[in-house]
């Protein structure tokens, strides 16, 4: 078991180094240097330009810049934003809870609706519910989520006036950030109505971000359940006279869940990619919109650090899913 964990975990190291190199090289290829971008229309004298380049170490050979970058990362230093002058890791830490709150709520939404729907579709295979669900989930899977967001805003915010259009909290409330999760912070604060406001702001982005995972989870649960329901031990359980709920809920679900757990873990990448679009539409102050802004401002360190952190996150979650899979299913431990 320990051997399996160590082998699998050691594979992460070269990938991590590769991600560092990739993010470093990609960023250097972006045209226009950050000093010029920062000065913008005002212009800058060549002397001052050279001085600033030197100050940020941008005039050294590329390999030296990369070597010092790896050294810094090893110490947890991801550089300082050229625009805001604050450490990248600090900016990430400040914005990440917003993305995490949105992402968790989206995945929860997807599981709460996708899992039962997939189970029922599998048990009632070929029924109208099954066909309907498969049609809906393929539609959800094909959805351009930025348009889906606009459509939901059109219906629920503009036509019905039920939900706010953007942001995380109405401007009339001030909630002191303690956990960074606005729902929890709002509950702990004395502001009345803040929790309600935070919840209302969260609903539409959650649906938008959760739609594709919902479709994937429903489809995966259905096909995995169908496979398990054909197994001999299910027939045995039925033959013993066990009720439907016991057979499906206890015997089948437990085994059918293994691939579903994997698929849920693999949604992390989809979620972070979707967060870029969702956060842009709803002006959600998370890392998705932060990264897009950093590209427009050519803020190298932010982009570099952000990519590194996002990729590491995806990698670690995938590793965790793999390990969990190994624990759940002893057959794949080699």
């Amino acid at each position, binding site marked *: 078991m320990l051997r399996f964990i160590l082998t699998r975990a050691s594979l992460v190291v070269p*990938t991590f180094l*590769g991600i560092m190199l990739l993010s470093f090289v990609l960023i250097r290829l972006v045209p226009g240097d950050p000093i010029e971008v920062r000065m913008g229309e005002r212009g800058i004298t060549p002397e001052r330009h050279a001085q600033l380049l030197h100050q940020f170490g941008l005039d050294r050979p590329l390999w030296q810049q990369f070597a010092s970058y790896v050294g810094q990362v090893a110490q947890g230093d991801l550089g300082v934003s050229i625009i805001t002058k604050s450490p990248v890791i600090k900016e990430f830490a400040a914005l990440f809870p917003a993305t995490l709150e949105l992402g968790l709520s989206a995945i929860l939404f997807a599981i709460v609706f996708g899992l039962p729907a997939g189970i029922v579709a599998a048990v009632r295979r070929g029924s109208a519910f099954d066909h309907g669900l498969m049609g809906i989930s393929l539609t959800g899977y094909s959805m351009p989520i930025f348009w889906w967001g606009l459509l939901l*805003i059109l219906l629920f915010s503009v036509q019905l006036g039920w939900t706010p259009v953007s942001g995380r909290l109405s401007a009339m409330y001030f909630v002191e950030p303690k956990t960074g999760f606005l729902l929890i912070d709002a509950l702990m604060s004395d502001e009345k109505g803040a929790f309600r406001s935070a919840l209302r702001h969260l609903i539409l982005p959650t649906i938008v971000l959760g739609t594709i995972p919902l479709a994937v989870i429903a489809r995966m649960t259905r096909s995995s359940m169908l496979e398990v329901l054909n197994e001999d031990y299910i027939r045995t359980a039925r033959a013993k006279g066990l009720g439907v709920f016991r057979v499906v809920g206890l015997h089948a679900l437990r085994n059918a869940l293994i691939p579903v757990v994997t698929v849920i873990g693999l949604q992390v990448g989809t979620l972070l990619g979707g967060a870029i679009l969702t956060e842009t539409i709803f002006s959600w102050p998370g890392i998705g919109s932060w990264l897009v802004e950093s590209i427009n401002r050519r803020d190298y360190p932010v982009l570099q650090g952000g990519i590194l952190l996002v990729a590491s996150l995806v990698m670690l979650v995938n590793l965790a899913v793999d390990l969990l899979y190994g624990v759940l299913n002893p057959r794949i431990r080699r």
Partner: protein
Amino acid sequence: MSAEIRDVPPPGPLADVWASFTENKGAVAGLVVIVAIALVAILADVLAPHSPIEQYRDALLVPPVWAGGSWSHPLGTDDIGRDILSRLIHGARLSMIIGSIVVTLSLVAGTVLGLAAAFFKGVTDIAIMRLMDIMLALPSLLLAIVIVAILGPGLFNAMIAVSIVTLPHFTRLARASAMSELTREYVASSRLAGAGSLRLMFMTVLPNCLAPLIVQATLGFSNAILDAAALGFLGLGAQPPTPEWGTMLAGSLQFIQRAWWVVSFPGFAILVTVLAFNLMGDGLRDALDPKLKR
């Protein structure tokens, strides 16, 4: 009374695939929609009532015909008076071109890389597959955004970016199927007969790896259209006045209060096209992979 015995050949492999493909109603519906969109794309110049970029200054934000508009602009006009129906029709052409180019690029490059990894093993294999793993660790949209930031915004660069992002899927698939084919006896006998590496790769093994690659290509088409539209929406893909569907949605949030038609139609066009390709891809997978058949 002698019954005539005719020589009926067994159905060929293509006929067999076609037969099981047509059993799947969704897949056929997808195919029909795709053919229709392709026709619209080809005949865009004939079908479109107006030029996609001409601005009718006296007809700004005209609603669709059933919501108080006129037949001269059946689906209404946008904020600078361009005919939305004509833009959608020309957008179909762009989406089909985007899909074809992206799929061709990533299919060819991915197949070559995947086959090379499977054949040459060792360092080549490790280098290629590690690179693909790294690319897969980044959310594809983020990677595409970074690539567009490097190359500069625009339709062509967006297509390159999306091709690079979809590359790992084709590479992994090609490698996996080539690996399993390489253990077969026909490959060994072909090698013994003196076939060189290139011949083995492309003439002997590749034809037997095609089925999963074709399915992935169909699904890749829908991904390409979605990703390119997302880039357009973020202002990084096709630039105005190009009538690309995602680009059409880019500035539409500000009109959401007074002109729902500007927001609704382009996204609907994306959804229908992507859905059609996904339906057809699912059908093809079932038809080409006998193991999944009921």
